[in-house]
């Protein structure tokens, strides 16, 4: 029997539950809980003059109404600033409920708790809030102009200002034989998981303990944050992420106002309280991303080799900065992609606006970065009359130059050093997959039929698997099942399957015997969370290390029982046996029994481990000084720095000469995330990432008017792609192992999204003979760009 499972595209073990309606998402829990609903600001900027709740008091089933006045102690303080940074000189966070001022539409002003959600919303409608509206700051222009401010004590609206530089970039640009200045804009979008946020809290007054279920990407950190805010000892707080209906970044933000308020109300009321976000709330009260405007000065030689690259950009961080400035830091560092930039300088300002907060959304600043870098290389190629692929090849970091130090600081505070990757091979592979060199013939044929087609490509490097650490616990039960627990959370990535594969292979048991628990602080208390394409790298390796310890212990115990040398043993199919002596074997479940010396048997199997059945000899303690009972172990993976995945996308589009509609004819992806644990799951991640990339390139944007009203806060108006908009994705893999971790893996979750806008912009530009510098691009915008181009007004 083979137990090789890593690398196999096995079917997912979570699916039977999820396809039959037996999943348990947040709102599926707490059937008897009270329901919370929120009164939210209809204004982007206003003083809150009065909150009159008297009208709500008659509503049947009303249990409680809370405003800021009801909060005290740590609950009355601003929410934590999760990731402080020296460059974030004016970080600001919101109060759980508005304290006299609201700074974006959707900010919570009052919380209602009632018997059910219908009644809670009835009560919300009857709460009369008197606002003194102020003129808001909307959009980057208004933020930069700073004629008005979002926070009274931040007069220039600048939350953060940061410069990273290696070499004299501006000098190198000035001295270069060729120079270009370019501007690039990327609009706001959002993660938009199909399940919004949600919180369900139970306070056990007799036990003085709190259990909170949250649709979160980090249950362990929510636990610490809630304990601190609520004044409950950490030991008395448990946080569980149940089945989570997608995250894509937005659910790594925490603690949300609703998260602390629902838990706080459950304690105050001594009753279970639940809040499930509705779709409109998700649009106006969760988080967005992507809004940035970039200015590039680049200098290069006759071959298109970069000599100096200076990028300045402004980042719209919304009304508050609870998640710090991770997104613009990532843009500033990951902009370099697989290239050597010559001298490099990145400078950004992160600006307040009266809009929803900005936190990472799949790609997290990298889609903008890839857009800027790849479009810049396309511009250089066009300027020199050279091939677009050729200019990229000229600038690639070569495999023999690995590890490659960019002499910058990455988002984890560690040096930006690429560990491995074969960028020329990646490009070569995607060119072959899409038929790059044969495209001219296809284009000529299309032209004869009056069609416009174009091809584009884009490369990226993604820092994945950021620290600080993840851990895992692996235990072999006395019935032979293997139970794995890791602290980070799952939102559809198939961790129950992938981590089971890792544990099964390391331990030598069939994968069917392994069960995996994630995101439950009752089972594993220390973790960081699921973001930055880190789960497989971090917890995957932690599971491998913990399972390795269990295996070593199993061999030691089995060696004693079989009177053999541990080095002569192997584990396969759940049995430890002496190599070459198939009759000398012991089942892993029996080893598990022997690992736990017992006084009391609880079934037939455990009789084997009681004190009159077995012993290490009467002169030795039943559990040795350096040992622990149980066939189980915990271990940790903490990398010195991130591991860098890479890839390239190539896309063929057709544009309609009359309507300017863009149709994707081919979409090819080659990516390298090191060793694949489950190729089918990785492939699914790529497909989904591309779909979000296509959405961001062609359809999705948050449209605010000058009053700070989000005009398209519904699925009717915010255009997420349906099956009719997403192309079939053709994929190819490279497997350049990471030298930084035992499994040799790199993250894969975000890769599909990162270069999509850049590749599509390149293909549209190629089809149309113009230069797309703004994303997304709608048919009407492409139409307008054509008009400007015809009048030579585009650039």
């Amino acid at each position, binding site marked *: 029997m083979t137990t090789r499972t890593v690398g196999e595209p096995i079917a997912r073990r979570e699916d039977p539950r999820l396809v039959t309606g037996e*999943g348990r998402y947040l709102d599926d829990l707490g059937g008897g809980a009270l329901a919370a609903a929120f009164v939210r600001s209809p204004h982007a900027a206003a003083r809150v003059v009065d909150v009159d709740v008297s009208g709500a008091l008659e509503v049947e089933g009303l249990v409680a109404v809370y405003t800021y006045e009801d909060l005290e102690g740590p609950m009355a303080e601003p929410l934590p600033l999760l990731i402080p940074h020296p460059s974030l000189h004016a970080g600001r966070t919101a109060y759980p409920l508005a304290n006299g001022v609201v700074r974006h539409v959707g900010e919570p002003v009052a919380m209602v708790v009632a018997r059910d959600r219908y009644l809670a919303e009835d009560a919300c409608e009857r709460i009369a809030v008197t606002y003194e509206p102020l003129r808001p700051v909307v959009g980057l222009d208004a933020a930069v102009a700073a004629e008005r401010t979002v926070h009274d004590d931040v007069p220039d609206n600048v939350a953060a200002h940061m410069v990273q530089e290696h070499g004299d970039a501006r000098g190198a640009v000035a001295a270069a034989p060729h120079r270009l200045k370019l501007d690039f804009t990327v609009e706001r979008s959002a993660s938009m998981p199909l*399940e919004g946020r949600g919180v369900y809290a139970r306070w056990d007054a007799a036990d003085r303990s709190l259990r909170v279920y949250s649709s979160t990407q980090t249950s362990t950190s929510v636990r610490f944050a809630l304990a601190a805010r609520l004044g409950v000892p950490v030991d008395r707080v448990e946080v569980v992420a149940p089945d989570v209906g997608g995250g894509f970044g937005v659910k790594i933000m925490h603690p949300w106002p609703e998260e602390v308020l629902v838990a706080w109300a459950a304690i105050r009321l001594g009753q279970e309280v639940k809040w499930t976000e509705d*779709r409109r709330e998700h649009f106006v009260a969760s988080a967005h991303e992507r809004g940035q405007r970039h200015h590039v000065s680049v200098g290069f030689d006759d071959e298109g080799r970069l000599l100096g690259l200076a990028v300045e950009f402004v980042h719209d961080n919304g009304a508050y900065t609870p998640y710090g400035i991770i997104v613009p830091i990532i843009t500033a560092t990951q902009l370099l992609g697989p290239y050597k930039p010559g001298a490099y300088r990145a400078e950004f300002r992160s600006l307040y606006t009266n809009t929803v907060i900005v936190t990472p959304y799949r790609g997290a600043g990298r889609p903008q970065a890839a857009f800027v870098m790849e479009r810049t290389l396309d511009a250089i190629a066009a300027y020199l009359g050279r091939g677009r692929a050729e200019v990229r090849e000229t600038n690639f970091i070569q495999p023999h130059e690995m590890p490659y130090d960019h002499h910058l600081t990455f988002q984890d505070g560690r040096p930006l050093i690429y560990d491995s990757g074969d960028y020329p091979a990646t490009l070569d592979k995607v060119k072959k997959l899409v038929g790059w060199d044969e495209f001219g013939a296809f284009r000529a044929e299309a032209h004869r039929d009056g069609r416009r087609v174009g091809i584009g490509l884009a490369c990226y490097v993604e820092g994945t698997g950021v620290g600080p650490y993840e851990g895992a616990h692996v235990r072999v039960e006395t019935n032979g099942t293997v139970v794995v627990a890791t602290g980070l959370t799952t939102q559809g990535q198939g961790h129950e399957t992938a981590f089971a594969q890792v544990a099964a292979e390391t331990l030598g048991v069939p994968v069917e015997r392994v069960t995996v628990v994630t995101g439950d602080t009752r089972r594993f208390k220390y973790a960081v969370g699921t973001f930055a394409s880190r789960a497989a790298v971090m917890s995957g390796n932690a599971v491998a290390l913990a399972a390795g310890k269990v295996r070593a212990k199993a061999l030691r115990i089995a060696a004693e029982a079989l009177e053999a040398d541990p080095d002569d043993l192997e584990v396969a199919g759940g049995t430890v046996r002496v190599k070459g002596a198939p009759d000398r074997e012991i089942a892993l479940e029996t080893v598990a029994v022997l690992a736990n010396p017992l006084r009391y048997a609880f079934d037939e199997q455990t009789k084997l481990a009681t004190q009159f059945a077995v012993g290490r000899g009467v002169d030795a303690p039943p559990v040795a000084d350096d040992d622990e009972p149980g066939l189980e172990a915990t271990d940790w993976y903490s990398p010195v720095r991130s591991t860098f995945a890479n890839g390239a996308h190539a896309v063929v589009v057709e544009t309609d000469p009359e309507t300017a509609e863009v149709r994707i004819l081919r979409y090819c992806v080659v990516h390298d995330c090191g060793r694949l644990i489950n190729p089918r799951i990785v492939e699914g991640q790529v497909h989904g990432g591309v*779909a979000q990339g296509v959405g961001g390139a062609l359809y999705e944007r948050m449209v605010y008017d000058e009053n700070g009203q989000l005009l398209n806060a519904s699925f009717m108006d915010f255009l997420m792609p*349906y099956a009719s908009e997403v192309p079939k*994705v053709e994929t190819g893999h490279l497997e350049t192992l990471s030298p930084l971790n035992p499994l040799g893996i790199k993250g894969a979750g975000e890769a599909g999204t990162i270069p999509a806008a850049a590749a599509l912009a390149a293909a549209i530009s190629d089809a149309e003979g113009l230069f797309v510098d703004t994303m997304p691009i709608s048919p009407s915008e492409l139409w307008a760009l054509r008009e400007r181009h015809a009048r030579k007004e585009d650039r």
Partner: protein
Amino acid sequence: MSEPLHETRLVVNGVPRTVAVPARRLLSDCLRHDLGLTGTHVGCEHGVCGACTVLVDGRPMRSCLLFAVGVDGAEITTVEGCRSPGGGLGPVQQAFQDCHGLQCGFCTPGFVTTITAWLRDHPDPSEEQARQAIGGNLCRCTGYQNIVASVLRAAELLRNQEEAAR
């Protein structure tokens, strides 16, 4: 001011159920919170995402756009009712696992019900038809490619089933 309740009779997944609900109770909320069938998911509550799709007298409908009292007397099929008669995975459900047609699984119930109804009239679809069949449901995870494959796989499983029965 207590809301009047209306006795409503539904046959849900073959089982007659009677609930007393306010007139404004959405069918989605009735199924989830009054009948405890939480497999039907609510993704937008404005009829766009399709996660809440159930079969009403055999036809796919968005349960977030229906009042429970408005379908008094109807036969409702939810994702829980799409299992095979023996209790195992139904053909559409099996196809989703076979083809990795789901990731987070939140939108999946609406796809399963929609596809179940559609395949009754389209037993041997082309890939293009399969893509059109799911064109009214949103998924944020999969990029739809493996859902299209799931439709084709489910059709194949259903055809095999029918052949075996003959």
